[in-house]
């Protein structure tokens, strides 16, 4: 009796560990589902959208200009941010507002990316804290799953900031 209970308990623990590890590997190396919140990516992603973020292109260093990515916030490692990659390392970025007469430019340093939200008026991004290290990127958003009527890949950047 006792042996049988012990056996089932051990089996249950073993299966839990096994499936937990498989889930960890899937989330870490294939992709994960993310609920977005906040206004910074409107109109591409609005509040409470559910998106799928894939991890492979980050591990293979295949992030390109125009991709929407999820990254760790440089100022709070527990917080994730969702932005669009505007420039990769070595790119020239215009940092001034479109209405400014004098344009200011900066270069993205090695190993960094320049991130901006699609909602330029309501987004805290590289324009305020500068370029972000590439290693903070967690994944690239490839699919929007919810709401159903906008299911599919994400649209292009509406801001025309990518040169």
């Amino acid at each position: 009796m006792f042996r049988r209970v012990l056996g089932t308990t051990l089996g249950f623990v073993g299966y839990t560990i096994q499936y937990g590890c498989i889930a960890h590997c899937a989330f870490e190396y294939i992709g994960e589902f993310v609920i977005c919140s906040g206004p910074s990516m409107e109109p591409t992603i609005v509040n409470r959208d559910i998106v799928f973020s894939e991890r492979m292109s980050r591990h293979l260093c295949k992030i390109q200009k125009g991709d929407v990515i999820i990254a760790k916030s440089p100022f709070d490692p527990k917080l994730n941010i969702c932005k669009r990659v505007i420039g990769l390392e070595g790119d020239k970025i215009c940092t001034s507002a479109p209405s400014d007469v004098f344009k200011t430019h900066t270069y993205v340093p090695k190993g960094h990316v320049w991130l901006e939200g699609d909602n330029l008026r309501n987004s805290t991004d590289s324009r305020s804290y500068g370029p972000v290290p590439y290693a903070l990127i967690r994944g690239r958003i490839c699919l929007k799953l919810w709401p159903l009527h906008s299911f599919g890949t994400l649209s292009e950047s509406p801001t025309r900031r990518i040169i």
Partner: protein
Amino acid sequence: MAQRATAGRRYLRAFVSGFFIAVPVTVTVLDRFAYLARVEGASMQPPNLHPSGATNESHDLLVFPVCFMYVYCPLRSPRNPQQKIIKRVIGLEGDFIRTLSYKNRYVRVPDGHFWIEGDHHGHSLDSNSFGPVSVGLLHGRASHIIWPPNRWQRIRASLPANRGPLDTEEDEG
């Protein structure tokens, strides 16, 4: 013949199930709990304090990787995302640091950042060249030296002499 086919199938099944247990468990342990790493380069080889420790008070963020040689605080390099570097944490967020060769003489470490330095000053690419680094780049904390066996030990937190955050009173005064 039929018996051999069933035996072969049984072996195949055992292999597949073992594979599906062993690989995810190994990857998860390496990702979440601890891993071994070999340290290369001269940046953490100080002449005076050879095998000493990592300094970190904020251990909640860190897992404890078990590391090979003199290893302190591995993190992803801000310059090259493929590379991991190992440095000592000199200051946490909010600390005032007297820099060695950075563009500013004194720096306040911003929120969510560390000030890191190699023990071998002048031979180390650290915060003195690229500034404070984000905590999100941190990968783990070196806890043990495993190889060579005569230097097997736990790595304790310690700051090098004359390095470390300045007192706030001193800074105000």
